[in-house]
Every structure is written in C-alpha cells, then in structure tokens.
C-alpha cells in the first residue's frame, strides 16, 4: 500500500478536537487581538521591553505544550505554511522599522525642546510622570507617538498633559529627521496588517472546513 498522502489525510474527530482547542482557536484569538491593535493604529511598542508586546510570531500565540500539534498540522497542511511565514517575516520587518522610528523620535532635539517647554507650562513634572525617572520622559512621549495614542484615559497621570499637547507632538512626525522613518513604519504596518488579515481569513476558513468535513464542532461546549 502506498504511504498516505499527508494532504489528503483525514484526521479523526479526536485529533480535530485537539487541533481546535490547542492550536486553531488560541491562534485565531491571538491573531484577532493583533488585528484589533493594528486597526486602532496601536503598534503596542514598549520602550522598556524594546518590542511590540501584542504582535508576536505565530507560534508564540501557542503554549509550548501545543507546539507538537501545531507542527503536525502544518506538516499535514503545508498550504498553511506560506501565510504563516509571511506573517512572521512582515512582523520582523515592522519591528525593525518601528525600532528605527522610535529612535528617530526619542532622540530628536525638537521633541526634547517641546517636551521641556510643555512640562514647564503645566504642573510639576513629577505629578505628570509620577515615579518615572526624568531621563525616561522622552521615551514615554515617543512611545505614545509610535503607538498613535491620541487620547489617554483619565486614570493615567499623564492624561491631562498628553491630551492637551498631543497634537503638537504628533506634528513632529513631519520633521525631515523623523518623517522618513515614520513613513517607513507606516508602510510596514500597512503591509503587516494586510498579511495578518489574510492569515486570519485563511485560518478561519480552514477551521470551518475542517469542522464540517470531520463533523466536529468548533467549540465543544456550545455543541452541548
């Protein structure tokens, strides 16, 4: 008997259940959160971590125990590999551009000057930034700019300051020494979002087809 072709292999309901619960549902949920952040224009950059905290390689949305299931699924459905790899490549590109963009903003002399003037015209800086050390004030502001935070909720001590001055800070993106890195990051974000959207659609369709083919509900609990 010839070896089973992995692409035509029909998994058992038990296996499909495991793929749904340990791989596909967490992945779709995690990637959905990525898309939610992207649609808000929030790249979730954190200067202290030096990374995009909500945007991670596909496999990082899964707990390590589920990795063998994920690898098995990719082996049996190699058509899923290219969109997954495209996501991770686009993310890497986005992270690199954001890093450059953040560096251009945080080290910009005009930003430092605007920050110092805005603080002087407001309340004492310790009331605005709380326990954050003064050398990190530019990082906080640059993070808001990179994450396109136009408005902070009132429970942030920086809210009154930022919500008043944010327009002046966002205008700095047009400066010649920030503009190119801003536009490059915007381009990378657009490209990542499109790839992410495609991947989510692919995974949702795949899960749906699998559910119907194997007669296994996507959420077991809802099936009663």
């Amino acid at each position, binding site marked *: 008997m010839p070896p089973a072709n992995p692409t035509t292999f029909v998994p058992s309901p038990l296996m499909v259940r495991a793929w749904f619960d340990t791989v596909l549902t967490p992945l779709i949920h995690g990637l959905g959160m990525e898309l939610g952040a992207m649609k808000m224009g929030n790249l979730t950059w954190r200067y202290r971590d030096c990374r995009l905290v909500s945007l991670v390689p596909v496999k990082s*949305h899964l707990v390590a125990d589920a990795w063998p299931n994920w690898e098995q699924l990719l082996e049996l459905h190699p058509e899923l590999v290219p969109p997954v790899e495209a996501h991770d490549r686009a993310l890497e590109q986005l992270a690199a551009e954001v890093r450059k963009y953040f560096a251009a903003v945080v080290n910009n002399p005009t930003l430092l000057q605007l920050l110092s003037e805005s603080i002087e015209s407001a309340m004492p800086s310790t009331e605005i930034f*709380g326990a954050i050390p003064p050398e990190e004030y530019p990082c906080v502001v640059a993070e808001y700019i990179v994450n396109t935070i136009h408005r902070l*909720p009132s*429970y942030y*001590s920086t809210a009154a300051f930022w919500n008043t001055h944010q327009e002046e800070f966002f205008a700095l993106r047009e400066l010649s020494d920030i503009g190119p890195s801003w536009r490059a990051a915007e381009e990378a974000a657009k490209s990542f979002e499109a790839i992410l959207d495609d991947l989510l659609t692919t995974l949702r369709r795949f899960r749906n087809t699998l559910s119907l083919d194997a007669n296994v509900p996507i959420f077991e609990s809802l099936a009663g």
Partner: protein
Amino acid sequence: VSRDHGPIVLDTGPLLMYLALDYLEGANKARRDKIFRSIHRNVSFDETRQEHFKVMLQARSSILTSSLVIAEALKLRGNTDLKAEQEQFRHASLKKLQGSVTEISVTLATLMSEDGFSEPVVNFGLTDASTLWLGHTHECDVCTGEEKPALFGAYSLPGAKFRRLNIDKMLEF
C-alpha cells in the same frame, strides 16, 4: 497614576483578573492569553487592556470587595488552567488580597436589613447583591465581568448612589 478616582468595588471576574495579572507577571504571552481567555470568556484582553486595567485600579483610592466575592474567585470555577495550579495561584493571591484589597463582610442579615436589597439577593444571588450593596454604601463604581442586563434593575434601588460598569466598558474611553 493619580489616586483621586475614588474607591471601586470588584465583582468576581474583575477580581480574578486583577489577581491573575499579578500572578502572571513575567509569564509568556501564550500562557497569559490562555488564562485571560478562560477568565474573560473569550473576549479580547490584550496587553493594552491589561495595562489600562492595572492603571485604572492603581488610580483608585481603594479596591473593595466582599468576602463572598473572594470566596467565589478563589474557587476558580470554570477556569481549568488556573484550577490546575490552584495552590500556587491561591498562595500568590492571598498576599495580593491582603496587601491591596479591602475585604468587607456582607452578610445576608446586612442585605435584608437594607431597603430594596432583598430583590437583588433573590434575583442575582448573595455574591452579586453584596457588590451592589458595597457600591451603594460607598457610593462608588462597581466593576463587573459580564454583561448582566438584569443587574441594571439595581439602579431602581431607592437612593442608589453607585455606577455598575462592565469591565470592557470601563476600559473604553
């Protein structure tokens, strides 16, 4: 963070999320997401929301809850992931609860002695009624985890002086 936003009462879901945030500090994203997904019933609670929730609570003058809510939260009903490590979770949570949450005992007798509170007890149970009572007596926000439309009926309590807010609505701005 400014602490001038007054006290807040936490219902079971938000209390569990508060405890889990602390417990999962430093855990990898997949594990955090998995646990928050199970606590928050598959509703997105990404890093930005986690951070907002944390800051929103830090901005409160005090975090109040009832003994009944604490008992419910520590039962970990329906949270299979935390249930699997319940001893470690409870151990960490006890420290957090003692350090930053004001526990108030709300008995059935207390609720029955207050005008209008027998109805919430009958309709929603002791635990939910205890959070409404805390909100009422402290005239503050009550943060709940799920949409409980029926709880809006509590607004008709005579002289009620609290706002009952779903956690997701509370973090929207």
